[in-house]
């Protein structure tokens, strides 16, 4: 065991939350006497795994996550002595569909995506392989352009949101779900069938990050990619965004709930560390303060959809309300 006590806040986790966490950490370091927290990336899962490794100086204080912590993870945490966890929701991440700025513009509905990407579609009481290769075949209103999509790989939390809020939604909207259940599938099987994405190369899974998706679109200007809102906002000179159900994604439309595809972002504090690691409490409070996470703060400027219930979050942090207490 190292003799030195740790005096830097240690944060780990989601790469989606990372940009926001670094903005906060940087400002925190500038405005407080505490050292700038160390923010690791590596994914929500890694962050939580490290977080749950136990209590003590060589474990992280905060885990960033682009999803909420799972029940099984809480159990693992508890088994390792991490019992008091404070869950902090910092806002929402909008998920947008964008294509090359010089190409066609798109106005999508979830149904379009379902029809374009489903592995199999129900036709006359039978599941047949998806025959669609052109957007105009999916929906006559869409431009005559080959379907080529870059969607997050199955390791990304974004994929889960995409599957549920877009594909499954589309499946229901087109009535395909109903058709499947009529074919004798139970609800689970039907949902699963809805969310199965075609594997014939029309849709490409991206295991990397949005910069990879952007590079793929640069390599194939007919492609349509899935991005985070913040990423899109920083690249409006090369990307154009598609509407979903007639709503243009923006901080406002997502905050109001009009735009359907978004997910909440969190960080988790190890309560046991609060009084021990210098600056931890201050960092957490600073993160959720109006100056930072409010609708006019730097996080919103960067693309975070500010949480309308920020005040409640601030209370949770200030009063250290752990998950069990809620």
């Amino acid at each position: 065991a190292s003799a030195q006590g740790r005096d830097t806040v240690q944060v780990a986790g989601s790469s989606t939350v990372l940009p926001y966490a670094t903005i906060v950490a940087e400002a925190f370091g500038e405005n407080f006497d505490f050292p700038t927290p160390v923010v690791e990336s590596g994914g929500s899962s890694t962050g939580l795994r490290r977080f749950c490794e136990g209590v003590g100086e060589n474990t992280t204080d905060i885990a960033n996550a682009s999803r909420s912590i799972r029940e099984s993870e809480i159990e693992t945490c508890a088994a390792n002595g991490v019992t008091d966890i404070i869950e902090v929701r910092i806002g929402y991440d909008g998920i947008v569909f964008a294509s090359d700025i010089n190409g066609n513009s798109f106005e999508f509905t979830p149904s379009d995506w379902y029809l374009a990407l489903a592995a199999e579609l129900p036709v006359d009481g039978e599941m047949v392989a998806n025959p669609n290769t052109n957007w105009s075949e999916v929906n006559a209103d869409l431009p005559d352009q080959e379907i080529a999509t870059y969607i997050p790989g199955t390791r990304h939390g974004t994929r889960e949101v995409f599957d549920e809020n877009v594909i499954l939604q589309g499946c229901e909207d087109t009535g395909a779900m109903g058709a499947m259940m009529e074919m004798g599938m139970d609800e689970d099987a039907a949902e699963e069938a809805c969310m199965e994405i075609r594997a014939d190369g029309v849709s490409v899974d991206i295991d990397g990050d949005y910069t990879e998706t952007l590079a793929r679109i640069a390599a194939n200007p007919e492609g349509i990619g899935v991005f985070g809102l913040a990423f899109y906002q920083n690249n409006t000179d090369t990307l154009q965004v598609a509407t979903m159900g007639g709503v243009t994604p923006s901080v406002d439309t997502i905050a109001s709930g009009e735009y359907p595809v978004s997910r909440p972002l969190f960080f988790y504090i190890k309560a046991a560390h609060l009084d021990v690691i210098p600056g931890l409490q201050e960092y957490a409070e600073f993160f959720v303060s109006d100056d930072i996470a409010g609708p006019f703060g730097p996080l919103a400027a960067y693309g975070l959809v500010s949480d309308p219930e920020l005040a409640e979050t601030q209370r949770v942090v200030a009063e250290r309300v752990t998950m069990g207490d809620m």
Partner: protein
Amino acid sequence: MTDAAANSGPDKGAAPKRSIFAQDARTKRRNAAEARFRAYGLAAVIVGVVALILLLVSILSNGASAFRQTYISFPVTLSEDRLDPAGNRDPAEMARVTTFGYLPVIAQAFADAIEAEGLAHEVGLRSLADMISDEAPAQLRNSVLANPDLVGQTLTVEVLAGGRIDGFFKGRVTMESAERDANVTPEQLQLAQALAEAGMLETRFNWDFITAPDASGQRPEAAGLGVAILGSFYMMLVVLALALPIGVAASIYLEEFAPKNRLTDLIEVNISNLAAVPSIVFGILGLAIFINFAGLPQSAPIVGGLVLTLMTLPTIIIATRASLRAVPPSIRAAALGLGASKMQSVFHHVLPLAAPGILTGTIIGLAQALGETAPLLLIGMVAFVREYPAAPPEGLFDAASALPVQVYNWTQRSDPAFVERASGAIIVLLIFLLFMNALAIFLRRRFERRW
């Protein structure tokens, strides 16, 4: 003399004497094969070099601009009522004014300066503030807190221009792209152009890129490599100090001293196999052993160095063993016959003769270690770190980042301004690598000899 020329005629077989100038069919074939072989060799070298040049050109063309940065200078009046409401110049009190409090001061001063210069423009105050880096308030605040007496004075500050403005002067942002870009307007660019003509704005070499710590995604213009360079340097210190001696020692034992039996076969296979273990698995190992078991701190170069050492060891061992094996046994026999001990024959004769191969293994191993990110992911070094680690040895235990990590992080950032910085970081990494290699290559040339 002989009738050689006559004999070199077409009558094969009959006349044994053939001119050595004229090649027979078989020799022609063999020489053609020789020429082909040689051409393949040359082609292979050229492929390697061309690939390198291609990659270097793309890195350089993308990254050279990272070493230049755009600065704006203008006078700022540090008004007491904004920056020291208590009026007692107590730094503790003044620290209450956060960077958010400094922002309007700077924005206003910038607007005033432009007006004083007499430049006409249609940019609102908020957009004016956007032209200046978010780093500026922090810069100003730090200098004010360091010297509270500045309050009340007017001083000329030089601040970083925002990323898009900077990009405009590097050709990355154009008027056309600004039309479509939500983050910058053509008016801002025109104003920037005017400022440059008025001498308030200049683009010049940027030491901060090499010395400053990383910055958040909002401030690409301020992001630097200071912490990463230190982190990589520390890690390489650890790797070099451990991997080279341990690797060479292990190879010597296995190749020269170990009894040749099943066990040593097992060790040999095992070491080759370690080379095939994906680097992230070494991260898993490092996390389990060095952090969770030995209790070393996270994100620390010591842990990174240890993990990379374990990862580099197989490379060095394989290279070293191969070159030890290549030393002819007669050299060993000569030394032993003179009454040298085995140890002496190895250290005096065999090792120097194997040195070129050892150094090659070290170069390749270190190059790999220097550019590796995956194992660092699990031990917390793929991180945003702004505090410089202290000098070694304590500094080895402080949090730090690393050059490849910085590249990895920056390529993931959404602001396109980070693309040039990632390439710039790669340039620094390669320079770092060249420095490390230069010594090894020099040594290798000294040791190379044929017998």
